[in-house]
């Protein structure tokens, strides 16, 4: 019954963990998952049976490797017990992984100008997105946001696919000092953006959606809402979206998201 594109449940293996700045980059074997990856999808990892909620993590990259078929690269910021467990496992640890989950970013049919906005680890899925957009001939501007340099994904790599890269940190340790809202309107205008893609906390997504609206662009935002199952079973991760007819309905951010149209998300979080 499994669709070709549906998620897989596999026992994978942690191949390596590399610390870069405030992040841990995990290389994970999860047979079959990389082949189904599209930017904006994620995996849900078990961090032990006593922590019942799986931990959702963006797929940052898929890499072909010698013996293992392709591997996944995940970027983890240590915060609570689940991520602490994840980043402290030795290479060789078996990982119970489900993925790829969720709806990916939609790609424009025409080669239009795109602005990609990402904060911290959440910028992860924007890198493979940028590659695919470039393959389609889109002109890409990337805006990387972080509290400080340690939480910034590589701006160097961003330059490979992007024509222009803007870096904004809250403490000014690298790039421009400030918040994403400070730079968006100008960036969108300069880029002549037709589509804005955003990933990060709600403030970033909301700001990106609002700037897109002002600029007359489409927006696609990748939400990070707490998830219990990440597989659509529990109806715990609902987010209100404005339907076609103007009324609000609840969708599950794990299965109907995590990528949603920015102009549809009801940002105040009010439900019903």
């Amino acid at each position, binding site marked *: 019954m499994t669709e070709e594109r549906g*998620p897989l449940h596999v026992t994978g293996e942690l191949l390596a963990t590399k610390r870069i700045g405030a992040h841990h980059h995990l290389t994970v074997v999860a047979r079959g998952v990389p082949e189904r990856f599209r930017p904006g999808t994620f995996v849900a990892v078990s961090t032990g049976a006593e922590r019942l*909620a799986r931990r959702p993590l963006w797929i940052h990259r898929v890499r072909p490797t010698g013996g293992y078929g392709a591997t996944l690269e995940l970027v983890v910021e240590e915060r609570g017990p689940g991520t602490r467990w994840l980043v402290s496992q030795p290479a060789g640890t078996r990982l119970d992984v489900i993925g790829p989950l969720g709806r990916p970013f939609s790609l424009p049919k025409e080669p239009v100008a795109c602005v990609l906005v990402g904060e911290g680890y959440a910028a992860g899925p924007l890198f493979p997105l940028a590659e695919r957009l470039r393959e389609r001939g889109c002109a890409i501007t990337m805006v990387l946001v972080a509290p400080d340099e340690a939480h910034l994904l590589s701006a160097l790599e961003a330059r490979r696919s992007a024509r222009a890269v803007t870096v904004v940190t809250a403490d000014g340790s690298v790039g421009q000092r400030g918040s994403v809202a400070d730079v968006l309107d100008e960036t969108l205008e300069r880029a002549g953006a037709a589509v804005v893609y955003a990933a990060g906390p709600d403030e970033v997504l909301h700001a990106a959606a609002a700037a897109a609206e002002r600029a007359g662009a489409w927006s696609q935002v990748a939400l990070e809402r707490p998830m219990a199952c990440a597989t659509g079973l*529990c109806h715990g991760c609902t987010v209100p979206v404005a339907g076609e007819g103007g009324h609000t309905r609840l969708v599950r951010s794990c299965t109907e998201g995590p990528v949603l149209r920015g102009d549809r998300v009801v940002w105040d979080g009010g439900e019903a």
Partner: protein
Amino acid sequence: MSLALANPVMVASGCGGTGRELAAYGDPAELGGFVTRSITLAPRAGGHQPRIVETPSGLAHAVDLHNPGVDQFLALELPWLLQQGVTTFVSVVGRTLGEYAEIARRLGRTPGIAGVEVNLSPPDAAASSVFDAREPFHAASVVAAVHRDLPRGVPVLAKVRPDPVRVAETARAVLEAGADAVVVGNALPAAMPDGRDAGLSGPAVRPLAVRCLTEVRAALPDATVVACGGLATVDDVTTVLELGATAVQIGTALLHDPTTAHRLVGALAAPVAGEDEA
């Protein structure tokens, strides 16, 4: 009336999505039974965020009966289940006895369902807006109302409160009112960290669910009892089957691992139960 399940492993209400989501990980028709989330007469938006938080070996949830209402359910969710050959039990909950009866009538017009599960025990804030069936007498009234309005031949499962002190008394009352089996029990009444009402489920609650089972078995040795609450491993399931349960429902364990029910079916079917990863 017997439940006539192909195997004893069922999906607990509210933990299998609409059924479709589960299909990515295994054919739901291969499970003993699939219980839908609880369906109300009118659609319900459910509780505010956060709806589910992790607790030690459990989940606290205030999903609060989010569901599309019986008509949308019959139009959009049930047909897929029946078409796939899933042994489907529809869970129902109402604000009044009249609502219970009305839902039963609408379900009764739909051939193909394996049974109706009456949710007598929502643990969270829902308790304040659904019919209060905490007294055994009221629980029995609900079962009687549903039973009366369903066609003969559609089994009624009564899902009772996991209160060790009164569970046997309640089980007796609902069986006398026409239930074919008792589901023991549900999420426990609990609180979110911010103090809101919630339900607590998962392996954390298993020893309490097992106690409810032993209370009901001791008082009603001939009753058909479905064990529910915290079951996750082969060991858990064989334990409750040995204690006299006819079938089991798997809830929270599926949220952690959507292949759990299928793995259990496989392990129970194997000539020697496989090694158990606790």
